[in-house]
Each structure stands twice: as structure tokens, then as C-alpha cells.
């Protein structure tokens, strides 16, 4: 088994998988369209929660501004740049695959995965910092418990939405990491080439969506106060 990751453009050892019902070019385009359909459902998933956020923000304007001031925009901004950079390296991974460079695919996917990990670690510290101030479910501060009537008077439903939105997004980051690790393992075995790189492309599409969602979450949650 050849475990040396290819640094020269060479044809894939296996090429595109054989599908008896369609030629490889059609299979590539079908896979991409199928992925876009899935991304559409993901947009609707988060869209539902964004709709809830939009409505409550409109109704409880002051409370949302009070609550958003409890978040740190510098940390949020740092996480945004981390995800933007990971999106950049994911796009470069696809580019490398298009040139048959499995070694660069591995390198760029690894950087993407590490950035995802950094994002999750920063998020963990953000959430645990909230716990100290009674801003986390199950905690209280100065006698005011999370989502108690007094809490709601101050912040309305902001924090419920904050944890659900960033939590769901975090789950998608973890899922994206697993997906990209799987694709990276294939690249380490020189699976991809100029005529077959579909998993890299659709894995990167998923990762870009995760980034897109955060691009909207950041201003809505952190920059409102």
C-alpha cells in the first residue's frame, strides 16, 4: 500500500468510482447539486432560528441590547477571522485537489480542521465564562437565576437564542470536522486527482456553509449592544 502522499501531479491510482448508471462527469455534477440541495435544507434549519431571533429582537429591542453587551465582540471577531481563514484553506484544498496535489489537500484540510478546533476551544471558554456570571442555563448570580422572571425582564429571550444558535452551529462545526478528517484520510492515500476530487469539493462546500452561518451570527449576537 503506497502511504507516501503524492507531491507531484499524477493521475489518481483508481480514478473516479465506477457508476454504471452515469458517466463520471455527470456523477460529479450530480453530487455537487445534491450537496447544494442539502445546504439549502441547512439554511432553512438555521433560518428558522434566525426568524425567531429577528422577531424577538424586534419586540424586545432594549433587552437584546443589554444582553448583547454581555458578550465580547473581540473574542467573537477573533472566532470570525479563524473561521474565515479556515474557509480560505478549505477552498485551497479543493484547488489543490483540482491539480492532483494530494499532499497540499492534506495540508490545507489539516489547517482547516485545526482552525475548527481553535474555534470550538474559544467557544468553550466563552460559554464557561458566562457560567460564572449566572448567564448560563442552571446558574445564577446575585440571586438572579438564569431565565428567572427578573432575568427575562433584563434580557428577554436573548440568551436562550444565543445558546441554541451557537450550540447548533457548534454541532455543525464538529460534524464538519469529522467530515473533513474523513476526506483528509482519503487524500493521505492519494485517492484524489485532476479527474476525481468530488469528496473534497463537497466537504469544502459544507465547511463554507458553516462559515456562512457564523458570518451572520457574529453581528446579530455580538454587535447589537
Amino acid at each position: 500500500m503506497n502511504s507516501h502522499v503524492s507531491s507531484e501531479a499524477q493521475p489518481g491510482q483508481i480514478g473516479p468510482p465506477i457508476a454504471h448508471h452515469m458517466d463520471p462527469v455527470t456523477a460529479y455534477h450530480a453530487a455537487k447539486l445534491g450537496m447544494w440541495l442539502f445546504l439549502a435544507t441547512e439554511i432553512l434549519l438555521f433560518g428558522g432560528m434566525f426568524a425567531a431571533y429577528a422577531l424577538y429582537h424586534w419586540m424586545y429591542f432594549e433587552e437584546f441590547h443589554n444582553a448583547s453587551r454581555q458578550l465580547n465582540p473581540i473574542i467573537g471577531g477573533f472566532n470570525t477571522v479563524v473561521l474565515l481563514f479556515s474557509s480560505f484553506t478549505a477552498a485551497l484544498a479543493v484547488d489543490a485537489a483540482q491539480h492532483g496535489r494530494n499532499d497540499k489537500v492534506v495540508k490545507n484540510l489539516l489547517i482547516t480542521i485545526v482552525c475548527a478546533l481553535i474555534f470550538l476551544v474559544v467557544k468553550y471558554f466563552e460559554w464557561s465564562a458566562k457560567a460564572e456570571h449566572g448567564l448560563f442555563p442552571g446558574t445564577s448570580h446575585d440571586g438572579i437565576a438564569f431565565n428567572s422572571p427578573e432575568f427575562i425582564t433584563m434580557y428577554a429571550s436573548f440568551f436562550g437564542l444565543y445558546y441554541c444558535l451557537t450550540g447548533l452551529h457548534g454541532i455543525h462545526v464538529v460534524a464538519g470536522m469529522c467530515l473533513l478528517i474523513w476526506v483528509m484520510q482519503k487524500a493521505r492515500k492519494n485517492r484524489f486527482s485532476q479527474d476525481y476530487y468530488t469528496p473534497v469539493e463537497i466537504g469544502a462546500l459544507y465547511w463554507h456553509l458553516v462559515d456562512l452561518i457564523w458570518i451572520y451570527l457574529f453581528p446579530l449576537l455580538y454587535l447589537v449592544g
Partner: protein
Amino acid sequence: MSHHTDHRAATKSGIDPHELGHILPFVVYKRTFIILVVLTIVTVVAAELNISKYSAALAMAIALGIASVKAFLVATNFMHLKYENPVTWLYAGFPLVLLAILIGLLFIDNPFRVDPLPGLEAQRVIRPGVVAQELVAEAEAKAAH
């Protein structure tokens, strides 16, 4: 090996890679990334200007506007949507239409509803104008019977 490889000879399966995805030059990715980071900084700075004190709608429009530009750049350049066929654009754009309908209808429906967060409206008036204190007082009076 020369740089200019004949693709047909190089690929065992005989596929012309140009029939697959569009290959963009590296500078496009680099430029897009730099613009994205700049726009992130602009968003944070704009938020610091505290425009929401004068006009909440304007502050939100600026923040969401910049976010939409960033999203557009990621979608067209990183996700190659610029080079996709119209069917893919339809798949990508249709959820946004649905979301617009969802949020639009929510905003139309909401003013005619009362007290979604129990207890809060006893202390203040719901925007845009339904007074809930009386309704809550009524409900409490009924419950007391």
C-alpha cells in the same frame, strides 16, 4: 515533467478536467480572504460607532448589509457559485426566498399577538402598541376567582 501537461494523456479515465469544476487562480482566493477580514473589521468598527442610538434600523441594515456582502463573496468565490449553472443558483437562492416569506409574515402577524413572554408584559408595553398590562390584570383577576 513539464508544467504544461496534456490533460487527456495524464488522466487514466479519459475525463477532461475542464468538464468538472472551474479552477480559479490562487489570487482570487487570497483577495477574497483579505476583503472578508477587512469587512469583519469594518463591521466591528461600525458597531462601535453606536448608530443604534440614532436609528436602530440603520445600524441593523449596515451590520446585515456587510454580513450579506461577506456571505456573497464566500458563496461566489469560495463555493464557486459564480461558475455554477442556473439550476444550482436556484437551489441556493430558493431557501432565502422562503426565509423572506417566513420572517415577513412573522413581522406582520406579531403585532396582533399578546404577551409571548409571560410576566414581562405586566411591566411594559409591547411594541408596536398593544397594551398588555390590562390583559394580564384581567387574566390574573379571572384566575383569582
